[in-house]
């Protein structure tokens, strides 16, 4: 099993959710985050003075998937979260050793 983590622009969340749904992913976990990468160093004006602010609001989406879905899910995220402008975010996959569903205690793929 894999955990796919995506850090995306907040206003793209709806699109990503819909795309994953369409692909057949029926579970995910979302949380707030912020970050920077190349989208670094806006000039912000506050009371007439200029500042550089680096962190930008993002949303983190986590999806547990079967090993063989991992690549496709990454693709689905990329396509649905893309605006083509910098700051679109990252998506990565990490290995998962075990998964369980709390309600039933089921383990493995059944737990998804």
């Amino acid at each position, binding site marked *: 099993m894999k955990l796919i983590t995506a850090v995306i622009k*907040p*206003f793209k969340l709806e699109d990503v959710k819909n795309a994953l749904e369409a692909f057949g992913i029926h579970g995910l976990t979302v949380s*707030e*985050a*912020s970050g920077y990468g*190349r*989208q670094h*160093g*806006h*000039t*912000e*004006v*506050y009371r007439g003075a*200029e500042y550089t*602010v680096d*962190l*930008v*609001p993002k949303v983190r989406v986590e999806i547990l998937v079967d090993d063989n879905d991992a690549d496709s899910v990454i693709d689905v995220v990329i396509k649905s979260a893309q605006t083509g*402008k*910098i*700051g679109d975010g990252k998506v990565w996959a990490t290995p998962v050793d075990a998964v369980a569903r709390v309600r039933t205690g089921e383990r493995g793929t059944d737990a998804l």
Partner: protein
Amino acid sequence: MPEIDAGNTAWVIVATALVFFMTPGLALFYGGMVRAKTVLNMMMMSFGAIGIVSVLWMLYGYSMVFGNDVGGGLLGNPTEFFALNGLVDDVSGGLPTLIFVAFQCTFAVITTALISGALADRVKFGAWLLFCGVWATIVYFPVAHWVFAFDGEDTVGGWIANRLGAIDFAGGTAVHINAGAAALAAVIVLGPRIGFGKTPFRPHNLPMVMTGAAILWFGWFGFNAGSALAADGLAALAFVNTIAATAVAMLAWLLVERIRDGHSTSLGAASGIVAGLVAITPSCASVNVIGAMIIGLVAGVLCALAVGLKYKFKYDDSLDVVGVHMVGGIVGTVLIGFLATSEVIEDTNGLFYGGGWELLGIQITAAVATIVFSFVVTAIIVLVIDKTIGFRVSEEDELKGVDITDLAESAYEYTDIPVGGAKSAIHVKGNQSDKEEVKA
């Protein structure tokens, strides 16, 4: 020179401050109802209305409303009191005229601000300011003249107040029906928010909504009881009715929700309060406390049902200006025809108190005239603004949230992480939030 009555003046001064405070109250009421990413824009629409409309009022608005009629009861002479010319030492009805100027100023401001609720989340702040100025000038000032300018000894006032003789104590027509009809026109022209009907657009801060509703109620005592322009029995009656009708309307709204949805909500309580306040506005000085409670009941039930209609008719009256102010205003204006009683208002009885159909007809005429004029002229104004400088923000800006894209601010930054989540802002230089993104 006529004498100033200090007691009455004291009350009208305070009433003016109270009504003034209603517009920030409205800003909270509306602001809490939108999402966190548009609350500042929402509040700024109210504050902007205070700025623009106050200035125009002082310059020529008061004169357009209370200047001598220029013909047909349609408009006051805009130059007569230009820049409050000649009013400094003037006294009328025992009050310094300037406090009456200020009192009526606050009415013009809030009426204009009310409309903003229909335009939540999607209009440019600059375009809104322009709209405020134009709308106040060619819609509010005329209608206020119709309704609020009474004939004087050697002056002529508005047609609704004098020729038609409708009863509108504190502004059911000129304020609420007017704003509601304008809101309806505006949303039909501008169209719904992206996602309307699909996402619930839940309030981001309900305690803020309730606080706003409370400030509105508090200020409304100035609005209704202050419209007596004296600290007298009429003011006291208006005050009692403003409690009674509103209390019942709140309970009625909660009951409708309970029956229909299985639970009452705080948003329902806040909305019911406003619905009751709106409905008792025209009628607070012509009904007794039982009449007030009936008006509250009808307003609470009808408005609670009315706010659902927008989903059927597919117009995005975002914060229910039509469902609450137009419907509530009509309820209050029309029920006077049934519930007015000579117990409280000399020689006038509604249908339920043995009066004839005439009063009802008059009240309906006043309501319809206001709706038609306001709707048509507002539709034209909005259309012209939209076709020229553009009224709505771009689709992407609407999705990102108009606070950050139009004001370059965000309302909240609660975390220690300088920018966390949607609550905080990228205050970019210039008003295009993408500037830095395109340089990639």
